[in-house]
């Protein structure tokens, strides 16, 4: 895997080649490997939260289903679509960079950024709904503690919390804390991703990337796909599981 050219002479001194690498191939390999290892740390980082989710969902299934059923499944599903589309455009951006097509490359990067921001926008709408319904856990928002109105039997007001059998408001709060921790951390990663995309767009407009040097596009692409994967798991775990109980 690491057989490099044996001489120190850089046969083709690409302007983007850093002094301590022997050649572009080694540099690209290091970049990709570095990002993968970073993604390993990200997996473990989210892993802690997934563990807490699994544990408490096992302990308080009814409360988690009640909390889950209150989430807006339409917005969640649309957001999943938006994120998948952005992942697709990101993959295409890498493709166009690899084959050296500059204009589609820039277009795809911009599309990815816009879709990412759209995701964040929809997420913000969802958060605001939860804020209105007093579903922000604890005293996360000072002055607006967790205090949802619980629906009585037969009441169909969607802004009220419909508790399933065996569920308590206290444990629903636990669900919402895990919901906000996970989606919040995911959104935070999206924001970082959006920043990285802006960097890519600027440098792409300056024609810094070409078929020989496109490590940044590829590496940030990996990151973007990873964030997409996290959401692929978050969507069913937070929005869907327990849905069938509410609808019977």
């Amino acid at each position: 895997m690491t057989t490099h050219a044996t001489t120190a002479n850089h046969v083709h001194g690409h302007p983007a080649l850093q002094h301590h690498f022997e050649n572009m191939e080694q540099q690209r390999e290091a970049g990709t490997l570095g990002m993968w290892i970073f993604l390993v740390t990200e997996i473990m980082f989210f892993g802690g939260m997934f563990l807490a989710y699994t544990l408490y969902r096992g302990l308080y299934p009814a409360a988690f289903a009640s909390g889950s059923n209150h989430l807006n499944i339409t917005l969640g599903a649309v957001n999943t679509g938006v994120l998948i589309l952005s992942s697709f455009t990101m993959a295409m951006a890498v493709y166009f960079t690899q084959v050296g097509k500059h204009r589609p490359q820039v277009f795809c990067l911009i599309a990815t950024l816009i879709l990412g921001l759209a995701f964040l926008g929809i997420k913000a709408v969802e958060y605001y709904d939860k804020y209105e319904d007093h579903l922000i856990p604890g005293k996360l928002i000072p002055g607006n503690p967790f205090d949802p109105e619980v629906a009585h039997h037969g009441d169909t007001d969607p802004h009220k919390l419909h508790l399933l059998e065996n569920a308590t408001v206290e444990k629903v709060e636990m669900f919402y804390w895990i919901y906000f921790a996970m989606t919040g951390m995911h959104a935070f990663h999206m924001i970082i991703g959006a920043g990285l995309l802006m960097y890519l767009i600027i440098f792409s407009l300056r024609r810094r990337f070409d078929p020989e040097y496109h490590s940044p596009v590829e590496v940030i692409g990996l990151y973007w796909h990873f964030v997409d994967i996290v959401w692929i798991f978050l969507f069913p775990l937070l929005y869907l599981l327990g849905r069938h109980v509410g609808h019977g």
Partner: protein
Amino acid sequence: MQSWIPLVPESASTFSWKVDALYFYLSGVTLFFTLLISAVLIFFVIRYRRRTPYEIPRPVSGSHKLETLWTVIPFVIAMTMFGWGASVYFDQYKPPENAMEVYVVGKQWMWKLQHATGQREINELHVPVGRKIKLIMTTEDVIHDFFVPAFRTKADVIPGRYTTLWFEATKTGRYHLFCAEYCGMNHSGMTGSVIVMEQREFDNWLSGNVGTATPATAGQQLYQTLGCASCHGANGEGGRGPTLAGIYGNVQQLQNGQTVRVDEGYVRESITNPQAKLVVGFGPIMPTFQGQVSEDQLVQLVAYIKSLQPGGETRPATAASPSPTARPGASPTRNIR
């Protein structure tokens, strides 16, 4: 028995010698290997010291035989340690049947204890020698740890649930009780004594200290005050909740299809978080009593429910203190001390 500098603490429980024996085994192995390695090192360092500045010893290649040898030998020794340790541990942590029960509530920075016969103690625990004692422990605030070095046992005390610890003292005397889990400012002050007495002295002590109701009696009063009986009537009246008489120790069918054994933890959970494990056939209508009853009161309610016999009779308090010679509750006014 004590040398100038003692190497082991006093042995005062049935675990002591077991733990000590294992400890001596481990110490022996440790000493053996430490001395072996040190001796070999010192020998090599002297024998193969550099004699001329530029000498180069002959390189050696490794030996698979040796590597296998010093992988297998430590492994075998380690497994004996594991097996031995695990079996003693299982004894230590498996609560015994028919033990005398004492309720322990830790709080920053004191131990509150109550005997099944009602005597309360703070930072002191009087127990008879030669009897199995089971502590049912919880805490009002942070994690504490009930540690009696002379008994070679300890267990964390966790808020929001019960943990248990048991021992059987073998020697009378006064032994250190420490809080071993760091619990804040006055952690090192959260100490006390366990006083092991002959059974007769203990009975005297018991009879001299009755002043409060037994936990079960106190629990009964609380049960009335909180209005529990309106749903959980003694003989099934009320009917909105399961009958509690004789429920302790049984296995109950739950709504979600699982079963649960009714132990202290389940009774406690059903008071603080009634919806968590609903017995089949009953609706989620019971309100939580979390925050309305203190840990002490919870302990009393648990003790009361444990004491309920089928048919609504309260088990006599002596049942929780099964020594035939014990006369708890007798002459509550007489104070021998």
